[in-house]
């Protein structure tokens, strides 16, 4: 034990002799690891959020296509799908987009006639159903129009007529990740604004009795109605699981490239021992150090730098993503959006992710310090001391 501590003592003192260079290296190393780890933490938290929030949805989504476009689906389809064996319930959806020219934002309009009871994230002035002149909305519309509960919200229908609605409920900004751009109207008002005829719906959500049979029921619907497209909830979930996955996403590529380019630079720097370092190794061997001692000393030098930087990077990344809400990553996702959610992510900690970061950040660096040291350590000490 004492021997290890002595070697570690020597390695740290040796690093401190070149402290300016080593501190600069640790700072850059920490920032690179922090960026890479931020990406991993951010994407992991978003995946966790999507999978959890969307876990209670119906198994199938049925949409009608005509000329390659989504078109409203008729009430008669609901009746036909409802009698298919295995189908529990068919839930028609009324939804569409609304471009709001004063703010330049695009909102999502949804038709619904009642409120779920006891929803903590909704501040509602009424308890029952929505009247045709009332509206619930996410935090987006009130913020862009400086309005609030009890005030009026104006929407222009597809014929160009202005309709005024009273805001009777507002979703908390805590649910922004789901409701930021949402405007919920009564079904009749939603039809009016979106231009959907009576007895028509945007699409259908289909619940099945046995979720394992969802794909079979989906194929059946697809065969029975040639003009429909069926999206399964498994596809829906895998869309979000694939989103930001390790293989997809410019962030991951960018972060990996930055990490590897740093490691290549570190390798390049470490692979050629300086004259001073070669002489140091020669002297150490001359005074009786074994090759294994020299290698252990170099190993500890690399380990001190890489472990310190990696752990500091992990702490920085965690604070960046979960305490500061990822200010460096979110703008990329927002893109050209006028309206974007101000969400706070619930940390998703996976040991495998931390292990991945540590393996990628620590192992190559230590290898990059040990291999040239081994080459230096096996040369004759007298030759090294004479020639440098």
């Amino acid at each position: 034990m004492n021997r290890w501590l002595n070697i570690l003592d020597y390695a740290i003192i040796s690093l401190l002799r070149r402290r300016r260079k080593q501190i600069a290296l640790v700072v850059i190393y920490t920032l690179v690891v922090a960026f890479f780890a931020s990406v991993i933490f951010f994407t992991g938290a978003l995946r966790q959020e999507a999978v959890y929030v969307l876990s209670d949805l119906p198994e199938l989504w049925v949409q009608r296509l005509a000329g390659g476009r989504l078109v409203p689906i008729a009430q008669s389809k609901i009746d036909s799908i409802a009698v298919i064996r295995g189908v529990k319930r068919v839930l028609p959806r009324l939804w569409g987009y609304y471009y709001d020219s004063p703010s330049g934002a695009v909102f999502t309009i949804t038709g619904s006639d009642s409120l779920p009871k006891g929803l903590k994230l909704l501040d509602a002035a009424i308890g029952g159903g929505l009247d045709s002149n009332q509206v619930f909305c996410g935090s987006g519309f009130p913020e862009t129009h400086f309005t609030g509960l009890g005030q009026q919200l104006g929407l222009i229908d597809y014929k160009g007529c202005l309709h005024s609605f009273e805001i009777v409920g507002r979703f908390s900004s805590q649910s922004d990740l789901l409701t930021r751009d949402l405007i919920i109207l009564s079904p009749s008002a939603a039809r009016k604004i979106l231009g959907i005829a009576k007895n028509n719906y945007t699409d259908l959500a289909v619940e099945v009795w046995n979720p394992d049979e969802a794909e079979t029921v989906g194929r059946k619907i697809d065969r029975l109605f040639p003009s429909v497209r069926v999206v399964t909830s498994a596809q829906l979930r895998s869309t979000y699981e694939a989103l930001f996955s390790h293989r997809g996403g410019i962030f991951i590529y960018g972060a990996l490239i930055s990490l590897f380019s740093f490691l290549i630079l570190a390798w390049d720097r470490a692979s050629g021992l300086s004259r001073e370092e070669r002489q140091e190794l020669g002297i150490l061997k001359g005074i009786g150090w074994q090759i294994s001692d020299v290698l252990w000393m170099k190993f500890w030098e690399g380990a001190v730098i890489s472990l310190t930087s990696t752990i500091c990077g992990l702490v920085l990344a965690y604070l960046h993503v979960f305490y500061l809400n990822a200010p460096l990553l979110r703008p990329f996702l927002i893109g050209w959006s006028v309206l974007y959610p101000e969400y706070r992510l619930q940390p998703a900690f996976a040991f495998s992710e931390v292990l991945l970061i540590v393996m990628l950040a620590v192992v190559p660096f230590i290898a990059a310090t040990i291999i040239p040291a081994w080459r230096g350590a096996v040369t004759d000490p007298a030759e090294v001391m004479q020639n440098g």
Partner: protein
Amino acid sequence: MMPRIRVSLIYLYVLLALVLLFTSITLTGHTVQGRQRMEGERRIAARFLLSDLCLSTESRHTRHLSQPELLAAFQDLPGFHDHFPSSSFIRPQKLNWQGVVAQETLRRE
């Protein structure tokens, strides 16, 4: 005589402190409020049949990732994307039976 202070021990204590700091912030990061918020969002999604998260509102296919719109380029399946900054994050899925059906539907029409 004063005992010699070992730099190695000081370093190991600092490293241990950093590891403990990281472990404690990760263990305390999960808040009850966070879990309640996600549970509330899950109920809203189920009640209003909201199939997608509002990650970006710049285009239809990144606002509703799972609801492909065939008019937009490459929108054959959930997760397919067009040329918007936020599209860069999304990996398209492999074509499966729905995709094949969608293509056949297009040909029939």
